[in-house]
């Protein structure tokens, strides 16, 4: 295990805060829109996990790749998927990133490097290995970040991917966002180790256990891993400890999450904490924070309006994009 020292510049922290605030506000807007009955579907809130991808976004280049899962809205926003087309995709509109064919669980936005969102637990890891292999073979200098949950570390694909990435010294960072639950089951009930990061040792992989809600520690971890990948020093497994504030999926009654645990997690809201810390340290004034938030408000409102007013796909588009050319289906 690498001990993580915190020495992060104020500029970086402001960047992390701005991204995290954007994710938080977006999530609040999304849930409010659902509650108002304006949209249906499944929504896997990532509220509480904002700091992890926001820290990565302060480290990554636009050309780097990010892979994520159904609970991926935070990763998608942090990688810079445009909010308009992202929201339109969630709403199933023709103007969505994937023309309404993917939906929330299958967002891809090649232009921003969000190369894959998968709805199958653990399946992104082997694909991330291939993305990193491609970067290495093309000598492009790109790095692949593969996000997944604590539950995913129990599936075979996790282990095959770690072995192959370590064996081939690939520029990939495996980011286990340990939000402490896999659906309705506490993560500790599903594994024989107390820390998922310990599983890296089986593959002699650089492994970091970090508080994913602490922006300084998380930034250092992300930077250590990405720098190593870019320098040709192979993969890293990061276990970033965090918590999900709204359960597994929209509508989850969260009866399996102890009240005091949930309350404590929400009381330590990492986005609000960073906001307060930046003001307390004099890095940002109240007015500056308000200004940042007002800008995000406008951007998010515009995205929801754009999506809501966008057309639904034409039924004739249901049969395109199955194959390269129009072969008989």
């Amino acid at each position, binding site marked *: 295990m690498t001990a993580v020292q915190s020495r992060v510049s104020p500029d970086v922290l402001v960047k992390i805060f701005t991204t995290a605030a954007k994710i938080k506000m977006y999530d609040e807007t999304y849930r409010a829109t659902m509650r108002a009955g304006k949209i249906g579907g499944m929504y896997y809130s990532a509220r509480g996990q904002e700091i992890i991808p926001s820290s990565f976004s302060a480290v990554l280049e636009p050309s780097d790749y990010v892979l994520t899962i159904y609970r991926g809205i935070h990763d998608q926003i942090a990688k810079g998927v445009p909010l308009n087309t992202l929201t339109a995709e969630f709403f199933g509109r023709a103007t969505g990133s994937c023309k309404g064919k993917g939906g929330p669980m299958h967002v891809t936005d090649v232009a921003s490097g969000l190369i894959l969102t998968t709805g199958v637990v653990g399946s992104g890891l082997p*694909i991330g290995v291939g993305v990193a292999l491609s970067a290495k073979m093309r000598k492009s200098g790109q790095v692949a970040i593969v996000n997944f949950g604590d539950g995913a570390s129990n599936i075979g694909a996790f282990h095959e991917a770690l072995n192959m990435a370590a064996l081939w010294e690939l520029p990939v960072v495996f980011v286990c966002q340990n939000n402490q639950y896999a659906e309705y089951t506490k993560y500790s009930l599903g594994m024989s180790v107390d820390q998922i990061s310990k599983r890296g040792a089986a593959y002699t992989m650089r492994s970091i256990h970090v508080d994913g809600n602490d922006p300084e520690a998380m930034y250092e971890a992300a930077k250590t891993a990405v720098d190593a990948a870019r320098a040709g020093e192979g993969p890293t497994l990061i276990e970033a400890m965090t918590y999900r504030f709204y359960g597994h999926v929209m509508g989850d009654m969260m009866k399996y999450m102890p009240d005091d645990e949930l309350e404590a997690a929400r009381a330590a809201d990492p986005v609000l904490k960073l906001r307060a810390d930046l003001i307390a340290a004099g890095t940002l004034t109240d007015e500056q924070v308000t200004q940042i938030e007002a800008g995000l408000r406008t951007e998010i409102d515009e995205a929801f309006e754009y999506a809501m007013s966008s057309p639904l796909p034409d039924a004739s588009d249901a049969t395109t994009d199955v194959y390269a050319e129009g072969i008989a289906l």
Partner: protein
Amino acid sequence: MTAQSEVIDPEVKSERILTQIQAINEALDIALGLDETVFELGEDIQDPGGGGFGVHKGLSTKYGLDRVRPTPITEQAIMGAAIGAAITGMRPIPEIMLMNFMAVCQDQLINHAAKLRYMSGGQTHVPVTVRTTTGAGGGFGAQHSDMLEGPLVHTPGLKVVIPSTPADAKGLLLTSIFDDDPVVFIEMHHLYFSISGHVPEGDYRIPLGKARLAREGSDVTLISWGRQVHDCMAVADTLAADGINAEVLDLRSLVPLDTEAMLASVAKTRRVVIVHEAVRRNGFGAELAATINEELFGQLAAPVRRVAAANTPVPYSAPLEAAYMPSKADIEATVRGLF
């Protein structure tokens, strides 16, 4: 050319005779030489062995272990890595040692390779050619012999190719590798050494979705692919002696499918027998029979018939395995039953 080899493909203009395994090796060599983004990955594919059957012989020596990349025994990672590389600009050729082992990585193939173009609205695509080999009749037992093309053709987004001749194997493999969709390329290892044929030199491509008219006839159409095409040809010879003139259509690719050639042939002969090595129930033959009935009902002189394997796992012991396999005798009896 091995001593027992049978020479086929008289229509291909080439003096050169190769086994199917040599033809496949040549296609891989040409593809690796043509395009830097092409690479192979799979178990045991490196020299000196060049794979369990020697398909890759010489290639890792010529192109290096980066591009003819041996992997651990890790089917999910092989398939996943191929997909990840494919959506970011490479043209991987993963090998799944035997078709039954594809069951181990169906998630990657069915949930990802087949669907990424669609789910991304065409932003990414998966130019992967998954090569695998299989086939019953060799005493390999139930877990090393299955023909599993059925579930693959049932998965929109995949293309499925099964060559029967060395010339087709080479030309279809080259087309598959440079195709922008995921192709599962099924090689029946019985054909690796038992069948030789004229194979043109250099790079040539056979389009996917074009059936090969292996034999022209007027009285009945035998539709098949892979190994059983050769059985159909032999049966056609036997029947010809009795004045039954059979047409043999080798589909070559199941997706895309040359429906036009199939319907044209059956409309002409008005009788059809579909022959495949996969088990009968829900095999691709059922789909073909349905299509023929939908399109040609009323024009047929006899019901559509299928000859396929028994609905059991592949048995081990020789007499049991022979009972399982669709045989030439089965094909012949079925054809005779139509008249």
